[in-house]
């Protein structure tokens, strides 16, 4: 970790192409001062808002759907075929269409994020229901639990570590999509829009600072989700990224 700093200092001492890479300390200074500006925080919250609304809707749709598909063999086969057809369509290819349909506001961002986040959550939910211990399900049947109750009390908790992994993957997808939509489509507030603005100003330092800050946001999201995962799902060891 200390060597990471040393490496940064090396680029600073080199000074070969200051037009391309400003000294590390100056970028760092710019990044820190960025965190003190209110404009940054409005952009940050706008992006986060779109991310989390999209992620929330995608979770609410994908989890019940995934449970249903995971439990029925026939529905599973049919649905997988449809999913395999739809999934290769890159979500960003839908940006131009979404702009025409929903305009350039938050609504459009959320719609695209929902589409992109749906797949990882759906797949992990299906995967999770397939990994439920059959003894649990059989026990539920012995105790005369109804179908809905079995799903809610046995399958959902047992699959939840997998579902959460899906949500965690989807969160990074959401950030990627939010930033790309903002860069391509513009709009009122957002990290991608600030990035774009910095480029239009030709401000190299600011561009670096915003790119780094976006990375920090990504890291922060990753750590938050990982912390939740470790705390909530400490009882399981099988929750892994498939």
């Amino acid at each position: 970790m200390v060597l990471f700093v040393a490496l940064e200092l090396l680029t600073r001492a080199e000074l070969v192409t200051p037009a391309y890479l400003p000294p590390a300390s100056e970028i760092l200074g710019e990044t820190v001062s960025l965190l003190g500006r209110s404009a940054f925080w409005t952009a940050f919250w706008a992006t986060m808002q779109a991310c989390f609304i999209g992620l929330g809707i995608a979770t609410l749709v994908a989890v019940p759907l995934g449970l249903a598909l995971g439990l029925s063999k026939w529905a599973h086969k049919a649905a997988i075929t449809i999913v395999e057809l739809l999934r290769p369509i890159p979500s960003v290819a839908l940006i131009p269409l979404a702009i025409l349909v929903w305009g350039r506001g938050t609504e459009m961002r959320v719609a695209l994020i929902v589409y992109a986040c749906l797949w990882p959550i759906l797949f992990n939910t299906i995967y999770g229901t397939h990994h439920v211990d059959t003894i649990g399900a059989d026990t539920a049947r012995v105790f005369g639990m109804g179908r809905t109750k079995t799903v809610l009390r046995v399958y959902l908790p047992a699959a939840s570590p997998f579902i959460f992994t899906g949500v965690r993957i989807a969160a990074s997808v959401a950030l990627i999509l939010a930033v790309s939509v903002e860069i391509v489509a513009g709009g009122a507030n957002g990290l991608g829009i600030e990035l774009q603005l910095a480029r239009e100003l030709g401000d190299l330092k600011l561009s670096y600072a915003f790119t780094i800050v976006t990375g920090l946001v990504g890291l922060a999201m990753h750590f938050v989700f990982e912390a939740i995962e470790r705390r909530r799902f400490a009882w399981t060891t099988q929750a892994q990224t498939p």
Partner: protein
Amino acid sequence: MDDAGADAMTWIRAHLADILIRLAAVAALVGFWWWATARAQSLFFPTPDTVFEAVWNDWLTNMGESWRENFWPSLKRLLLGFGLAAFLSVVIGVAIGRSRKFGDYVEPIIHFIRAIPPPAFLPLFIILLGIGDLQKVVLIAIGVFPPILLNTIDGVRSIDPQQFDTAEVFQIGKVRRVTHVILPAAAPKIFAGLRISMSIAVILMVISELFAATDGLGFRILQSSRQFKYVELWAGIVVLGVVGTVLNGLLLLVERRVLRWRVN
């Protein structure tokens, strides 16, 4: 030849229900699309027949021009970026996987680069590299670099130490140790990384072309939307979906060939 035919027949018979249900699913999807769009009569959502007609008329009948103007520029960027990143990350990945010390130096940097959503690099790269192909290739390369690299490192580190001892005993040289011991053993993991990266590469290719481009598949979609040609826009989306599927399929074919020796 007859044997192969008989084999195919038994395979079809065994999987008949499976095939039928898959066909039914596709039919249901198209049927639903048809029903919903015909009912809605929305300008934004054209019926599938008009979309497929547009795919045929705009893309397939003048394939020469589509290829030159859209497919080739896009594929060139994608393959260059993907190839560059794959080569570099396998080389660096083997080095990191073999040397703890080098890994300690470089890994924090890689993890930070991975945390940055790749499209966020786009404005910065436009300043640094202009709006030409170079910027698009570098954007694709940096986006697919971390997954391949991390998988390669993982693959190299999980090689059974006994394999190295055996190589030592047989006095196999350093270079041949890399090509004959390390790479084959790490290949399954490397391919897992490549597969994840392919879809990222397609996404980044499209993004880079939605912004400051004059040709490519993404550019064509953007142009249709600017001219409010909804049917053409949908046709472009369908074509991109097919391109993504074909690229994934090709990669799977390569993987199956390279990893044929693997018993699984």
